[in-house]
């Protein structure tokens, strides 16, 4: 086995979104940071968005499903027992390379669902405790938006001015005003002015295939380059096989595979940042005599309580050309009108809505061709020309429903399927609950009313159980070691120098896109480590 002689102060497993935030912070605080990432850096010149084939490339090499991309670094995720596929990106920057950049903070009530709604669990931390970290990462991620959103408590002032809401947002805003419903200009981690390494958004609207302009705030752009210049070392093409322990049960490094060879990286402290699927997979792969059921799994909850935000889409076709292909994508406007629980609706919790552009004709065609589309007509065949000519006259609402944690929804190790290094693939079991389906039904019905109020000629539900890449909950944060995997700072209850800093720690999924919270939590854990370095446990 090869060995990296220099032990790291902090080893970060996975080089994605949360990892970038922590690496930059800790390298800046003087820690010797090493990161092991199975993928590689993205070359913006290779991104498809400004090529004529862009949408077809988005169906293969740049598809958000690792199973479809099938690159060396994409570990397979078996979703035959899941109601929806699982999305992610594996490379420096992680899933933020392909995310839409919609930047959504949850609300204070999201952290208190047991107290307020009698379901799931309260988070061990409150919105107010996260507030300074939201504010810090919003600066680091160049978040653009308009202050004063009445859906939020004071203290949400995006550092950059909002992007234009465009014709799309204006038309829908007028409809929402007719109904007396909340809407607000979109808040996106997409800079409206050039900043640091980032260019200003030039509105290609293909953010979900990666930004060829280097504008969208993915952490390969916003954090990793700075982290490297501050001394952090990123070893790419390094697939971690297991986290190792010293004789006292402290994490002391990781074994990884690179080009078929096995290496060991020693470290005083280990931060797991392999994502909501990758982290539980690795903890389960790191079973040992001391932890026969998987590392840090005395609660039995590693991999359990997977939440995926099965999102739903409605569309309206309008009279005029709305230039709905103009970015950012990102949301043009958002709505929190029906976000909070109202039990008279027959369910608890709710959903955020985002009005998004439609990046091109193949995405528009999907509004008819998706198997869950209720358009009531075929796209193809007689009359298809008229339907195609309505592509640029469409608006789409995306609904992000809060799915509550259930132990029957989980990530496990696959009994036979393996990745390109022979390590067990992930097996996902996920069913959409009754409560989530009720949220989706209610919200889709309201979005259709919104389309009608905005003047749509025709409206329909274009799909449900779409994937979002919001993979959360599989290493639950909580105060009680018997019912959670990590504590309020992301430290494993069972292993005092092992932290989880990615989306796995979400106690509940909230009804908003998760990246704001992922980054805020990673920043908080990194700050905690940097501020308490002397007292914290390390490997011997």
């Amino acid at each position: 086995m090869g060995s990296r002689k220099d032990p790291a102060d902090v080893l970060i497993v996975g080089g994605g979104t949360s990892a970038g935030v922590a690496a930059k912070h800790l390298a800046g605080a003087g820690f010797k940071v090493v990161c092991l990432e199975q993928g590689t850096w993205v070359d913006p010149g290779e991104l498809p968005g400004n090529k004529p084939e862009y949408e077809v490339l988005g169906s293969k090499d740049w598809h958000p499903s690792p199973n479809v991309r099938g690159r060396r670094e994409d570990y397979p995720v078996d979703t035959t027992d899941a109601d929806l596929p699982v999305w992610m990106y594996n490379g420096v920057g992680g899933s933020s390379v392909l995310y839409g950049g919609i930047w959504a903070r949850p609300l204070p009530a999201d952290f208190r669902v047991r107290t307020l709604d009698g379901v799931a669990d309260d988070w061990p931390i409150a919105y107010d405790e996260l507030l300074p970290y939201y504010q810090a990462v919003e600066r680091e991620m160049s978040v653009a938006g308009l202050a004063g959103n009445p859906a939020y408590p004071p203290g949400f002032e995006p550092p950059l001015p909002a992007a234009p809401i465009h014709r799309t947002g204006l038309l829908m805003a007028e409809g929402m005003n007719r109904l007396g419903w909340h809407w607000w200009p979109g808040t996106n981690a997409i800079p409206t002015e050039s900043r640091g390494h980032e260019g200003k958004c030039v509105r290609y609207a293909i953010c979900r295939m990666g930004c060829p302009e280097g504008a969208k705030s993915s952490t390969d752009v916003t954090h990793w380059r700075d982290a490297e210049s501050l001394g952090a070392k990123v070893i790419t093409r390094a697939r971690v096989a297991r986290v190792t322990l010293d004789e006292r049960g402290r994490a002391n490094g990781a074994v990884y595979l690179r080009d078929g060879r096995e290496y060991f990286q020693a470290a005083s402290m280990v931060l797991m940042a392999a994502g909501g699927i990758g982290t539980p997979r690795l903890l389960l792969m790191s079973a040992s005599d001391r932890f026969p059921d998987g590392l840090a799994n005395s609660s039995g909850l590693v991999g359990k309580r997977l939440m995926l935000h099965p999102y739903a889409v409605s569309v309206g076709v309008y009279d005029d050309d709305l230039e709905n292909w103009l970015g950012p994508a990102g949301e043009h406007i958002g709505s929190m009108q029906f976000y909070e629980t109202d039990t008279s609706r027959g369910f608890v919790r709710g959903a955020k809505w985002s009005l998004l552009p439609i990046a091109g004709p193949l995405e528009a065609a999907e509004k008819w061709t998706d198997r869950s589309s209720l358009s009531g007509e075929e796209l193809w065949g007689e009359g298809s020309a008229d339907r195609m000519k309505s592509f640029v006259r469409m608006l789409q609402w995306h609904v992000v429903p809060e799915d509550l944690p259930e132990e029957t929804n989980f990530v496990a190790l696959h009994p036979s399927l393996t990745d390109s290094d022979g390590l067990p693939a992930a097996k996902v079991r996920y069913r959409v609950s009754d409560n989530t389906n009720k949220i989706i039904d209610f919200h889709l019905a309201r979005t259709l009313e919104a389309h009608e109020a905005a003047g749509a000629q025709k409206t329909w539900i274009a799909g449900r159980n779409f994937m979002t890449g919001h993979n959360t909950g599989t290493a639950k944060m909580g105060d009680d070691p018997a019912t959670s995997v990590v504590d309020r700072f992301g430290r494993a209850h069972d292993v005092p120098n092992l932290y989880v800093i990615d989306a796995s720690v979400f106690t509940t999924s909230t009804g908003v896109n998760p990246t704001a919270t992922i980054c805020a939590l990673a920043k908080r854990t990194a700050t905690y480590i940097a501020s308490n370095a002397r007292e914290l446990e390390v490997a011997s």
Partner: protein
Amino acid sequence: MSVPNLPDELGDASRARLAALADVLIPGGSGLPSAGEADVAGPWIERVLGANPDLTGPVSHVLGIDGAPDEVLAKLRSQDREVFDGFAFAVGGAYFMNPAVRRALGYPGVAPRRMPAAEGEAEYYLDDDILGPVVERGSIYREVPA
């Protein structure tokens, strides 16, 4: 039937067959060309298969079925939706890549292009106090007990 290297092996006959099948999906009209007129079976299908080689499977599968094009596709649609969807996606991708089609549909350029926001554009859309009613209704979040 599976043709591993379809773009190289598409002879005139298969191209004509592909155009005929594609015309069933996209007959044109209302100012848009049919799939055949838009040369879907020419350079555009090759670009599609180059960009997503996985689509070679369904395209060659459909080309390998004899019969009237509309009947072949109707049967596939009801009996083998996976193949139908792959074929339709490839044909649609080829059609929409043709710059003349893209233009006729109202999309600018041959691919998304730089269109940065103009000075004052964000403010322009918020003129007329369109956010006024939202702000006037006041906060809508639930207070949480300390």
